[in-house]
């Protein structure tokens, strides 16, 4: 599928294409898609996400290479197709087709008020640990996850460290004169 939709090498054309994608997004598997540095990115809505991953698996993307969250609080520089309404959180899933040696990335918008999304761990068992990590770090809740326990954080930890409003917890260092000088 990337073959038919790839923009030409000409940079001028590429940027025009990016602009036109933004204005009237093309669809792929029913999802608006963009190109980012030569990589195919699909933008999915929360309710279509599970079905999309299933479709892509049938298409040959059988390895879930990576799954992580991202917090866009205070970032207005994000370029999204016009049909996608930006939300605070994004779930980013990287799928790999090992037969055809191609990748696809799916960005799902997740709202701050209800950070719930279907778990894909029954399609890709390998996503299990990564979803647990996203829960730890961003507080995304994966529905249908078989083991939603903390993975990197200790049990009972409060807060989600990779959220932008989670402070670094840095203690200011006070430089004092050394005694006796």
């Amino acid at each position, binding site marked *: 599928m990337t073959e038919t939709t790839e923009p030409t090498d000409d940079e001028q054309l590429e940027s025009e294409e990016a602009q036109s994608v933004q204005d009237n997004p093309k669809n792929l598997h029913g999802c608006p898609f963009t190109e980012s540095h030569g990589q195919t990115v699909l933008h999915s809505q929360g309710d279509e996400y599970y079905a999309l991953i299933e479709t892509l698996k049938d298409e040959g993307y059988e390895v879930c*290479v*990576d799954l992580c969250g*991202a917090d866009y609080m205070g970032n207005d*520089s994000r370029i999204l197709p016009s049909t996608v309404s930006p939300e605070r959180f994004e779930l980013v899933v990287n799928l790999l087709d090992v037969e055809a040696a191609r990748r696809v990335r799916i960005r799902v918008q997740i709202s701050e008020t209800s950070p719930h999304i279907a778990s894909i761990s029954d399609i*890709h068992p390998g996503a299990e*640990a990564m979803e647990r990590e996203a829960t730890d770090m961003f507080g995304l809740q994966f529905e249908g996850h078989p083991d939603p326990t903390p993975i990197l954080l200790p049990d009972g930890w409060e807060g989600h460290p990779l959220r932008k409003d989670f402070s670094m917890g840095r203690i200011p260092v006070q430089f004092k004169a050394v005694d006796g000088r």
Partner: protein
Amino acid sequence: MTKLDHLRNRDAVLRMSETEAEERAAVVDPDDERMIINMGPQHPSTHGVLRVTMELQGETVLRSKPVIGYLHTGMEKTAEDLTYLQGPTNVTRMDYAAPLFTELTFSLAVESLLEVEIPDRATWIRMLMCELNRMSSHLLFLATNGMDLGAVGMMIYGWREREEVLRFFEKVTGLRMNHNYIRPGGVAADLPDGWREDIRSILHVLPERLEQFDVLMTGQPIWRERTQGIGVITTEEALALGATGPILRSTGYAWDLRRSMPYLAYDQVEFDIVVGTYGDTFDRYAIRLNEIRESMRIVEQCIELMPDGPYRTEDRKVTPPPRARIDESMEALIHHFKIFTEGFKVPPGETYTAVESPRGELGCYLVSDGGPKPQRMHIRAPSFVNLQTLPHMMHGGLLADAIAVISSIDPIMGEVDR
């Protein structure tokens, strides 16, 4: 999809929180033949601080769960507070046995967002250093793998050979580990004088030493008995669990990013991908041993084909002006100062780059908001994902073999926990 049902239904994974596992471990129920034990986090064979919660029936492992996070220091959060030039100092501490690969994948991601081309020499230096690092990482594996299985002599030999490579790294980068050598825009410094001779002397001693390892381990009946047929995993399972690197290749599936999706100049060198047949612990050991030989082939070609030229990009956006210019130009001084204090700005966007580390696909997902620091930096750590295969490999095996299986996954806990 049906072929994967057994992955979910076999019940190899112990789904239980840390706290619950601890409580269950303390209770002894005489009627229940199963018991929960915690191995680690301080067990020497767990390569750092990996804790495995296992459900045992006698000596047989039923279900298990790796409990991780003991080394979690929030490095992805730290990365959001460091400039792109400071970034490699942070990521290099993730996989401390193969630090150059994390630096590489991070630098490739930054360069992809910046859309800067790096000079040929930088590419080849990166490739040379990474292959040497693959050798040192696999030598470390041979040392720890041997020690875990009772070939204690390997502990000394593996570390000794690894030290040869690290000595060269020290000469090039100034440090044995955590080099901060590969940086956005190229590498930190050119190769030192006499680097060819230094590498040739490593390449001269290693083949003979590797043959000694073959005598000590590969052909040895005790070694084979302890590793063959232990911790078997199939290609379907490995792919479904996202396992890459030697674990996937041990099942006979020749997937190596250097060949399948070439980066740097891997399409210009000759090497073979080493694959196994049975997906067992022995295959994973043999793959790593032979990958050292393949890496040596690549290193030899790097010595031959190393082009001349600058070792970092001439793009003034990321590279400070030359030292001589700073003495005569105020603007150059300001430019230099700006790059190292404020950092260079990276255009908004997001990208994912992946390289083949000694442990599998090492990826970097980078989001920039247009400022000098990343908005989000995520490292796809191969050890973290590969560790998910552990319960499936150990299921139904003996407790004593669990050590062999953990060792054969070769997890680096710094990378798992980040």
